Structure formats: structure tokens, C-alpha cells
């Protein structure tokens, strides 16, 4: 009797999740395409790039503060193993104030010689151009409309230094804030004029080029990566009420265009074991497999009482640029009960 009760409680508990949940449908990525990339070399993963103010062309104090803040913004929001930027009076990468390499009309510019060095310039506050007079908001006691946020422009340039080319916006620019690395930066107070974080389409390319920090790090919503989930069992033919070890692997698909993200294991996601009764066409969520390791492995040991088909499902997360997938189907055959059998009705 005790055995029978334990069996029934275990089985009903295992079935409950499947009665509630349903199979999710993969959603497309919510954002626009990742930023294009420049054709040059990459810096090393997590390489620290130390910069200093260019001798003879040091920015004013307010712009120094903005540039250093932009470096911090880049480091904090790169969402990848892209290079980091650190101010150091002994640094070998010069950031200057003036025309530099910006040409006639540029307000900010860069050069990069990866993996060795970079330069950056911001143009002079108050300089007259054909389009008007350049005003940095940080240089104004009370920022006025039409000024440029130096922290945003410097972050744009740091993005270029990493490898990013300009984001390609929709025609109506409704996706403007998906990237700070823009062909045409906006002035105060237009939407996106003071972005102090990389946008999702900036980080998407940084992730492709430099990889994600950890196997459980979220993938940019600007990506749309195919995933692969597989399922294995230790035994597909068991005695009534015996245990089966279910193991599932989840990873990014192998694809050369994914570059450093190709075949990455995906840890700490939600992988559900789904069950289909023999003769049925309906799959129900049966059990959520815990992520036992950071290597994209999901395991559980479950007792089974009747033959059924199983598969694992990874539903496309709304917060990540990953597509959903389902594994191949495995049938686990359970032998009939021969003694101390539970009530067939309540056992269901």
C-alpha cells in the first residue's frame, strides 16, 4: 500500500506541470538587424585598451569627463567579451580634441589598428560648420536644444573602435535606439540623443565578433539564432515504476555566420521535457529539466508508469535572440505492472 501511494503521488506530481503548460511557439527577433561590422581585425577578447589625452590636443575638462563616462558605458554594456577601455596617463591610445582625422564635416572620428591601438577625436565646441555651430551639451552651463551629447558621441566612437559600422535603420527610424553607433547622431532633445548604453543591435555584433561573457549570458534580441536541443535517455525499456535518466543538451546551431557564437552551449535556460501518450497527437509539458551545469546540459531522473513518447522543447525566449527548438522523439516502453499495482483510474 505504501509503495502504491508513493508511486501515485510521484506520478501525479510529475504530470501536473504538463497539465498546465502548453507548447510555446517560436517568435521572430523583435529588433532590426545587427550592426554591420568594419572589415579590419579584432582586438583580443576582453583586451584592455588604455587611453590618454593627446598631448597638445587635450579635451576640456567637461569633455574628458564625458569621454571617460563613455568608456565606462562601453565596458558596462558591451554584453560580450569585446575590448574594454580604461583611462591611464601611461596609455598608448590617444584621444584628442580638434580636427584630427575627422575631415571637414566630422564631429567625432576614430582610427583603429587592431589588436594594437586606436585613436579618437572630438571636434571643438563652438566650431562653425556648414550645417551650423557645433555645441557639446557638456560644455554648456544649461544645455540647449540642438547640442550634441559628448558621452553619446564618444560611445559611438568606442563602438567603431571595437569593430562596429553604422546601424542600418528602418526608413522611419523607429528602431533608432537599437543602436548608438549611428550614421547620423541626434541632437538634444530628439529620441536617442543621449544614449549611454550600447543598443541591442550594437551588442548583437559585439557578441558575434567577441562572444558572450558566459554560457548563461543573454543573447541580444537583435540576433535570431537557430538553436539545437537534443534528448537522450539511459534506458528506453524499463520495468513498471522504474526510473529513467533524461538528459538534454541545448546549444546554438553550428553556423559559420554566427562566428564566435556558433555551437555555443546554452546554460541556465528553460528546457521542458514533453510527453505524448501512445495514440495521442498532443504534446504536454511534463517536467522542466533543471540546468545542472553551465555547459548547456539539463538532466532529471523520473519514474515512469506507462509507455509514452518524450521530447525536449526549448521555447524562444522573448528576451533573447534565440529561436526555439524541439528534440527528436524517444519512446520509453514501460512494462506492465505485475504486483501491487495502483488503481488504473487514479494512476492516470
Amino acid at each position, binding site marked *: 500500500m505504501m509503495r502504491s501511494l508513493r508511486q501515485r503521488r510521484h506520478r501525479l506530481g510529475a504530470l501536473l506541470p504538463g497539465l498546465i503548460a502548453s507548447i510555446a511557439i517560436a517568435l521572430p527577433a523583435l529588433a532590426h538587424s545587427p550592426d554591420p561590422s568594419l572589415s579590419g581585425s579584432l582586438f583580443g577578447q576582453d583586451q584592455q585598451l588604455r587611453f590618454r589625452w593627446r598631448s597638445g590636443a587635450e579635451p576640456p575638462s567637461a569633455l574628458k569627463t564625458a569621454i571617460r563616462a563613455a568608456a565606462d558605458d562601453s565596458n558596462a554594456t558591451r554584453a560580450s567579451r569585446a575590448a574594454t577601455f580604461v583611462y591611464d596617463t601611461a596609455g598608448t591610445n590617444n584621444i584628442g580634441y580638434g580636427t584630427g582625422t*575627422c575631415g571637414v564635416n566630422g564631429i567625432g572620428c576614430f582610427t583603429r589598428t587592431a589588436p594594437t591601438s586606436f585613436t579618437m577625436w572630438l571636434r571643438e565646441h563652438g566650431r562653425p560648420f556648414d550645417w551650423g555651430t557645433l555645441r557639446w551639451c557638456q560644455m554648456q552651463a544649461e544645455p540647449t536644444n540642438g547640442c550634441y551629447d559628448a558621452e553619446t558621441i564618444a560611445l559611438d566612437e568606442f563602438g567603431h573602435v571595437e569593430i562596429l559600422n553604422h546601424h542600418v535603420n528602418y526608413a522611419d527610424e523607429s528602431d533608432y535606439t537599437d543602436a548608438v553607433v549611428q550614421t547620423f547622431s541626434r541632437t538634444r532633445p530628439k529620441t536617442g540623443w543621449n544614449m549611454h548604453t550600447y543598443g541591442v543591435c550594437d551588442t548583437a555584433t559585439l557578441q558575434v565578433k567577441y562572444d558572450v561573457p558566459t554560457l548563461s549570458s543573454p543573447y541580444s534580441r537583435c540576433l535570431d539564432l537557430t538553436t539545437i536541443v*537534443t534528448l537522450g535517455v*539511459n534506458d528506453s525499456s524499463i520495468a513498471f515504476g522504474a526510473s529513467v535518466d533524461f538528459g538534454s543538451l541545448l546549444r546554438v546551431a553550428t553556423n559559420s555566420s554566427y562566428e564566435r557564437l556558433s555551437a555555443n552551449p546554452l546554460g541556465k535556460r528553460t528546457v521542458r521535457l514533453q510527453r505524448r501518450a501512445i495514440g495521442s497527437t498532443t504534446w504536454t509539458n511534463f517536467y522542466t529539466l533543471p540546468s545542472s551545469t553551465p555547459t548547456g546540459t539539463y538532466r532529471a531522473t523520473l519514474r515512469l508508469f506507462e509507455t509514452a513518447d518524450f521530447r525536449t522543447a526549448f521555447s524562444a525566449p522573448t528576451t533573447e535572440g534565440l529561436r526555439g527548438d524541439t528534440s527528436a522523439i524517444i519512446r520509453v516502453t514501460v512494462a506492465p505492472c505485475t504486483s501491487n499495482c495502483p488503481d488504473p483510474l487514479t494512476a492516470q
Partner: protein
Amino acid sequence: MPVRAMTWAAVVLAAVAACVGSGTPSSTPTPADPSTSAPQATAPPATASQATPIPPTVGPPVGRLAAEGGDPVSGQLGTYVWRDAGSDSPWLPGAPVTVGAGEPLTVSFDPAIGVASWRARLVPADADAPVGATLLGQGVGDPAFQAPEAGSWTVEVHVVFDAGDASYFWRLEVT
């Protein structure tokens, strides 16, 4: 019950991820704007005697827009990336040029280098951003498109070259 070795099934489901117008050849382009030259390395404000030298930077070619029978007008060079360097500019007003409505316009480059692709779009001349821009044309090879209807317009021609990409601007006075 026999216990078999755990075998993880590996299932790979690979899926992945200019129109020609009939306008009269009566354009009267204005001289090239002096602010349109290709970027050159220039010295920063020299406030110290130990200034760090700036290496020279080679940038995109000069873009010249011409109507039939008219002299070419160099465009204002806006935002570009060129090899491992780049410069970010605002949306520019454009180098002034007067053309007839519907007139065929072409853009050539100096030095002449291959164009991978291009896209021309326009906004009213008083606009300071491309929001709501109208596509004039796009394609491969040297840009060619038709002048819009009468009015004052800013035309941006974005060109992709092998070594990078660049935006060029003209202010069209269309009569």
C-alpha cells in the same frame, strides 16, 4: 532490469538561421563647395610643443554630381568609414546645385573606384535628418537617378565601396 549506458542522441536540425528622365539639359550647377574635399590629416590646436603626431588618413573619394551638359559639383562628404578609420558627421545641407525637374543626374568619383552599391534619398532642404526621406534610387555601379519635382531638396547618396562607405550631400534647387 538491465541498465544500458547513457547515450545522448545528437540530433542536428540545421536551419538557419534610376530612372531616366526627359528633362532639358539646362542645369546651371554652382561651383564646388570648398568644404567638400576628401578628409585630410590636419594638425590639432597646437597648445603644447610636444604634440603627438597624427598619422595621415586616406578617406573616400570625392563625389561629383552632374546633370546632362552641366559641370559636375562636388558633394559634401558626410559620415564615412574607410578601412580602419571613420568620421561621424551630422546630416548635411549639401553642396548647392540647380537642375531641372526630372533631369537625369549621375554621380562619379575622383579617384574613380568601383562602387559596390548605392542608395539616393531626399528630404526637403530645411530638414536636418533623414526621417521620412524619399528613395530616389538605388543600385550598383556609379549612381544615376532622376531629379525630383520642383523645389529645394537635400539629396544624400550613400555609397558602398570595397574599402568602406560614405554619404555625400547636395542641395538641389529644382526648377
